[in-house]
């Protein structure tokens, strides 16, 4: 049976208390027996013996008094006879109270009957004959019949005395027998108390200590990195409960170790992803490109690419579906395909179409990536892009200096569909003309979908207002400031990555060869 430690200790003490109670009961019972014997001896047997002796003695005295009165003075001795008769009656009454047993009563009845006959003999025959002057005949009657009756009384008294002595002997035997029983019970109880004491004082702490040692061994095993060590405690008490919790903790630690391992792998993945992104923005006279990225996790689904030649800048931003490793892999694959295709010198439409085909083959049906592939002509300020299911870019105009108030709008050109899902995503191009000072802002949906604690999303309206309001702080600061604004809105809890690419057109710069870049999107 499995018991908790508390119940085991309580059970042990309970058992000991039971034995102690038994001990008390045996002692009390022994005292009770002694008291009963005492009562029998001092209140019944001895007083009964005394009473019988007194009765016998009284009849002997009565006989002697009558005999004396027949020889000498009649009156004085007859008075003594009468007193002794009263004494005998008194002791007979007393004896009847004490001798209630059947055989005793019978003997007492015989004795008192003999006594009565003696009194009748004395009162009706001996004394009248003596008073009538016939002392010799009275003496003869007394000597013959009276002596026989007195002898009978003595015999009955002796029998009663023997009986009382027998009762005393029986009582002594009973006391001796009870003492022996008590002694046996006492030995058993003391043995039981001893065993229970040993169980409590020795076995329980020993078992407890053995189980604790196992726990200590298990902690050492964890210290050695062994998370499979079986604690193996099945005591059914709190120590087993502790062992169960320990095993849970062991699993938790193992899980933590695995997570730490995964974290290291994630860090490697994040490092690969960081290395894939442009680390040094190529310098471009006429354009300022500021990328800004804040990932919600170590790795993310947002991706971008920047490529600058003296004639044009190619700026690509994308957002792979999902989150975490799956999104990061999708983003990495998309970026790799796109760069490979771009490296072959393909035209933007071809780059997008082939990237789409590659992603369709390489990814599962739940995965896709949005993207904007843009080319900005430095000489003319013309920007063209293919929007593949991505949020519309924002065109910010006005520097905020000399009354040139900042203003802007989302450029909703012809749309295409996301990459990696449709066989024909569409290749419609949006074209805008930028003026010096204009800023074209590409961003991912993390800005729009950032959620306040109560569930409200940041949304296009808030983003547009924030861009216009914060644009006075300068292009270099704008991305950081917007990210800060969104983070505050989401109370610091961003679920999605935030990526923003700000392209500021500073105006055409004369090329060395005097030519203007030709765009073929």
């Amino acid at each position, binding site marked *: 049976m499995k018991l908790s430690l508390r119940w085991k200790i309580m059970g042990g003490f309970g058992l000991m208390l039971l034995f102690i109670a038994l001990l008390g009961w045996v002692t009390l019972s022994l005292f009770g027996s002694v008291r009963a014997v005492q009562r029998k001896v001092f209140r019944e047997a001895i007083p009964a013996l005394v009473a019988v002796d007194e009765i016998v003695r009284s009849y002997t005295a009565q006989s002697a008094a009558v005999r004396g009165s027949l020889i000498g003075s009649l009156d004085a001795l007859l008075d003594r006879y009468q007193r002794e008769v009263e004494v005998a009656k008194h002791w007979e009454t007393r004896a009847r109270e004490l001798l209630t047993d059947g055989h005793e009563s019978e003997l007492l009845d015989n004795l008192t009957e003999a006594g009565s006959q003696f009194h009748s003999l004395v009162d009706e025959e001996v004394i009248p004959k003596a008073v009538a002057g016939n002392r010799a005949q009275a003496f003869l009657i007394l000597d013959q019949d009276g002596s026989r009756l007195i002898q009978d009384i003595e015999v009955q008294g002796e029998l009663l005395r023997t009986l009382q002595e027998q009762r005393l002997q029986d009582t002594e035997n009973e006391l001796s027998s009870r003492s022996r029983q008590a002694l046996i019970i006492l030995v058993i109880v003391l043995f039981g108390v001893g065993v229970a004491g040993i169980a409590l004082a020795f076995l329980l702490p020993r078992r407890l200590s053995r189980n604790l040692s196992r726990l200590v061994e298990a902690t050492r095993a964890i210290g050695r990195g062994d998370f499979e060590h079986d604690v193996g405690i099945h005591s059914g008490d709190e120590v087993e409960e502790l062992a169960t919790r320990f095993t849970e903790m062991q699993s938790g630690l193992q899980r933590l170790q695995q997570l730490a391992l995964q974290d290291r792998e994630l860090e490697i993945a994040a490092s690969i992803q960081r290395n894939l992104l442009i680390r040094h923005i190529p310098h471009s006279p006429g354009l300022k490109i500021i990328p800004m990225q804040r990932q919600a996790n170590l790795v993310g689904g947002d991706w971008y690419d920047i490529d600058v030649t003296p004639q044009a800048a190619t700026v690509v931003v994308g957002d792979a*579906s999902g*989150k975490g490793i799956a999104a990061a892999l999708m983003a990495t694959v998309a970026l790799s395909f796109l760069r490979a295709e771009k490296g072959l010198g393909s035209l933007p439409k071809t780059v997008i179409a082939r990237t789409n085909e590659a992603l369709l083959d390489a990814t599962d049906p739940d995965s896709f990536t949005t993207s904007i592939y843009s080319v900005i002509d430095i000489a003319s300020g013309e920007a063209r892009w293919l929007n593949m299911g991505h949020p519309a870019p924002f065109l910010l105009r006005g520097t905020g200096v000399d009354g040139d108030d900042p203003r802007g709008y989302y450029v909703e050109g012809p749309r295409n*569909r*996301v990459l990696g899902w449709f066989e024909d995503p569409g290749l419609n191009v949006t074209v805008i003309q930028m003026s010096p000072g204009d800023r074209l802002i590409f961003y991912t949906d993390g800005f729009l979908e950032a*959620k306040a604690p109560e569930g409200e999303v940041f949304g296009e309206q808030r983003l547009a207002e924030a861009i216009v309001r914060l644009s006075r702080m300068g292009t270099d600061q704008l991305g950081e400031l917007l990210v800060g604004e969104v983070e505050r809105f989401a109370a610091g809890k961003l679920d999605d990555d935030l990526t923003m690419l700000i392209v500021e057109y500073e105006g055409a710069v004369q090329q060395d060869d005097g030519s203007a870049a030709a765009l073929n999107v």
Partner: protein
Amino acid sequence: MAQQKVEIEITDAGSYRVLKPTGDLDVYTVGSLRDAIGRMIEEATPKVVVDLDGVPFMDSSGLGALMGGVRRLREAGGDLAIACTREQHLKLFAITGFGEGVSIAPTVEEAAQGFRG
């Protein structure tokens, strides 16, 4: 973060089934929708309308699960249509282009009329 669940009510509308998720459809909950669509394919009832009226928020993971569902159900000989009146989701469908490839309508019945085949 602990795995959260979105409640998905499944009702039989005769020739098709209606899946009605209640709660946000995002990276943490989207597995439930994916599993429910998988069951529809296993039970050979591959015509499904997903009712988005009980979904206040959906991110690209949710959208990915829906679009993955479209492709899987079509491969199984069925289709996935979407019943939605929420502006935010409709905008997401429009931006990504999924609205053009899938039947999307304000009610379940109207959406079901747009099943392919």
